């Protein structure tokens, strides 16, 4: 790696203030610090002399790594659902993977190019280092949208989210709302026809010219979509080929849905990686599951034909739709979640409750996880405020007790 290092050191002056390529300083700096650990050392006085090896780059990469099981499964499942839709009985592994890969590749590329492009420009303007937050956002966004989302919509949504949900607040670490979910919500409210219904979750055409084509009139909704539009008690869920699906299909993930969200097994793998690495808070995940189960149980106990989703058991509520994915990868975003220990329990619990609440009692939104996380993002500072107040009150009480004694 010596020659590479020498090359970087040689071209560095061009990117410094006054250099020919100064306009690309942020890009150069981002690449340099990505390739070589910065040699900047601790200040001589007034601070620690050694630092932990963990940094923000590794943190973000760990999240991307934790997303990989879901990502690869999403590739397979996209192909699998498409093959089902085309009515082909034979399901060869590699063509399915290739089809899914070709379906997701342009979306990941667009998401990263648009998002990182904006990040590079902002870093250059603010004369700061490039922050790694978008590494995660960039892969999350394609994983939580329907496979048939047009690329231009994705580009608009990512640009909107990065600028208005992150950069206007000051960048990574300052945003109030989860950036990936803002992109999702933007699409959901700006282009509702492309974000829900029975024509978007299963790919019907070829991907970059590859793969079979489904029949023109083909349609299939996600399980939660089917529930929301069903009437009465005879709830039967069907997969992409019209056959019945049950909880096991939802658990393994071979059901229609957004790219990365379907497989609970893969999500659990990701949750394991994140919690063992100490990056996601197990408190949030645990309490969100508890909240979802409790609300699911209540809804199921008072099941009524008016709200068909109430016929789902509490367990079903956890494994269908985006609940598990949102809880593990969205709710645990440390920047937008509650930051105090007690606050995390409350925050997670309410996400679980509200996700199921929206899902069950609002037929307009078959999936409530996204809105639940965004809503709690808004309330997280309030929850933390209350927890911090209790610490402050304890201190003030001590002070008054002391003054009364004297």
């Amino acid at each position, binding site marked *: 790696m010596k020659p590479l290092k020498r090359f970087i050191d040689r071209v560095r002056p061009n990117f410094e203030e006054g250099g020919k390529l100064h306009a690309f300083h942020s890009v150069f700096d981002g690449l340099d610090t990505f390739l070589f650990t910065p040699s900047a050392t601790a200040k001589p006085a007034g601070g620690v002399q050694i630092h932990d090896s*963990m940094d923000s780059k590794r943190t973000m990469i760990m999240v991307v790594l934790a997303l990989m099981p879901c990502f690869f499964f999403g590739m397979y499942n996209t192909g699998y659902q498409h093959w089902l839709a085309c009515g082909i009985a034979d399901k060869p592994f590699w063509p399915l993977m290739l089809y899914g890969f070709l379906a997701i590749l342009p979306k990941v590329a667009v998401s990263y190019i648009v998002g990182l492009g904006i990040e590079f420009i902002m870093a250059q303007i603010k004369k700061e280092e490039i922050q790694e937050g978008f590494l995660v956002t960039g892969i999350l966004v394609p994983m939580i949208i329907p496979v048939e989302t047009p690329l231009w919509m994705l580009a608009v949504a990512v640009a909107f989210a990065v600028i208005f949900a992150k950069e206007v607040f000051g960048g990574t670490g300052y945003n109030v709302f989860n950036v990936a979910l803002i992109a999702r919500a933007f699409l959901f409210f700006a282009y509702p026809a492309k974000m829900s219904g029975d024509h978007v979750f299963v790919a019907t055409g070829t991907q970059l010219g590859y793969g079979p084509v489904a029949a023109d009139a083909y349609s299939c909704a996600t399980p939660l979509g089917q529930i929301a539009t069903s009437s009465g008690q005879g709830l039967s869920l069907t997969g992409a080929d019209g056959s019945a699906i049950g909880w096991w299909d939802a658990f393994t993930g071979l059901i229609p849905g957004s790219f990365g969200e379907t497989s609970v097994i893969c999500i659990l793998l990701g949750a394991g990686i994140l919690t063992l690495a100490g990056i996601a808070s197990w408190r949030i995940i645990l309490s969100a599951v508890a909240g979802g189960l409790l609300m699911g149980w209540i809804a199921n106990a008072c099941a009524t034909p008016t709200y068909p989703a109430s016929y789902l058991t509490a367990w079903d509520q956890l494994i269908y739709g985006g609940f598990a994915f949102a809880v593990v990868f969205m709710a645990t975003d440390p920047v937008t979640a509650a930051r105090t220990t007690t606050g995390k329990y409350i925050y997670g619990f309410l996400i679980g409750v509200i996700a199921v609440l929206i899902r069950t009692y609002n037929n307009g939104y078959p999936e409530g996880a996204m809105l639940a996380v965004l809503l709690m993002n808004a309330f997280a500072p309030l929850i933390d405020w209350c927890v911090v107040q209790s610490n402050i009150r304890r201190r003030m009480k001590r002070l008054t007790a002391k003054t009364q004694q004297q």
Partner: protein
Amino acid sequence: MNIKIKKGLDLRLAGALTDTAIAARVMPDSVAVIPDDFPGLAPKPEVKEGDKVLAGQPLLRDKTYETLKVVSPVSGTVRAVVRGERRKIERVVIEPDAEQKSATADSAQSAIDLLCASGMLAMMRQRPYDIVPRPDRQPRDIFVTAIDSAPLAAPMTASLAGKKDLLEAGARFLASATTGKVYLSVADDWSLGDIDGAEMVHVQGPHPVGNAGVQIANIAPVNKGETVWTLDAVTLARIGRIVTDGTFDGSTLVALTGSEVEKPCMIETVMGAQLSAIVGGRLKKADHHVRIISGNVLTGTAEDADGYLRFPYRQVTVIPEGDDVDEFMGWASLSPSKMSTSHTFPGHFLRKAFSPDARLLGGRRAMIMSGQYDKYMPMDIMAEYLLKAIIARDIEGMEQLGIYEVAPEDFALAEYADTSKMPLQQIVRDGLDYLRKETE
């Protein structure tokens, strides 16, 4: 009284002491007193170049409290009063005599006057603000620590052997300066028994268990308007010496530690000794840059080889500097030699000693991970929120969140572990200075 803490971390660093026997006795060619080591003190010189001084004789006085002195650790000749920008006194350099003589303190003064005149008060700290105690504020309690839990530090008991009488004399004397108690915190290795005049506090747990802040937080936190003093047991023994026979004892035991030291050992020298006398000839042969730290790796200061031993440290740590290392994609490394609190590094699970260098190992970011600081602060302080209040210069917030209870050193471990590489101790120091300026 017993205190057991769970939060905290003992860093496993290479270059630990293997035994605490004194390996060498050195008298350096020059000794310095550095005003920056006495925060809150506005120094005025009491001596000029060429003056002869005795050990314990004042070198500096405070501008506001003129009786408050900083004294010379040795007898000798003042070689220079070094001034920096805007005539700030950077250090007073003394050339020690071959034969050491001490000034004799006048013990017929009030306790506080004696502490001020003998330079002993300057060797303590007060909370709030973590500064040299104000002589006109009577302390609610006095907290003495007899444990040094910092990374690679020598056990403080090594410096206290045979000084039980002095500790008791010091404790009894300090008890007369406060309306409250004198607490003495000791670890399991304490062998001197109960110290008369002090309330014994037995503490257990990882670093920062030896910090006065932890002790205060678990016994009686500092409320707004209260003042407490903190000092270590070595200073207490010096106070004992002053009140017993009026002499000043400037000698000190220094632990020379760190991965770049050939054979970590204990060296007897004097306070403020030039580092070259301590490290000279005792480092490994290295073709990379090294960092000589006066103090420990968490709170010490990096010095040149011709720098000086800073107060209040009894330790010199030498580690690799690291500015000459090219590490390819260090953030992706799975090398077992990388030290981290994160489970994503294999080294975390190995029971081995690490040799970290002084690099930041990442870029500075905004606070991203939550709850990270609290793991290393065994105090009822919401670190993140206090830091945010400090950064925002929100005085009411700082007071409510307990800034009067903390010192920068309480945030040292959190600063080490921080993935965002924020300068937490500097933030707290600036916050304390700001608050003091605004409220006094």
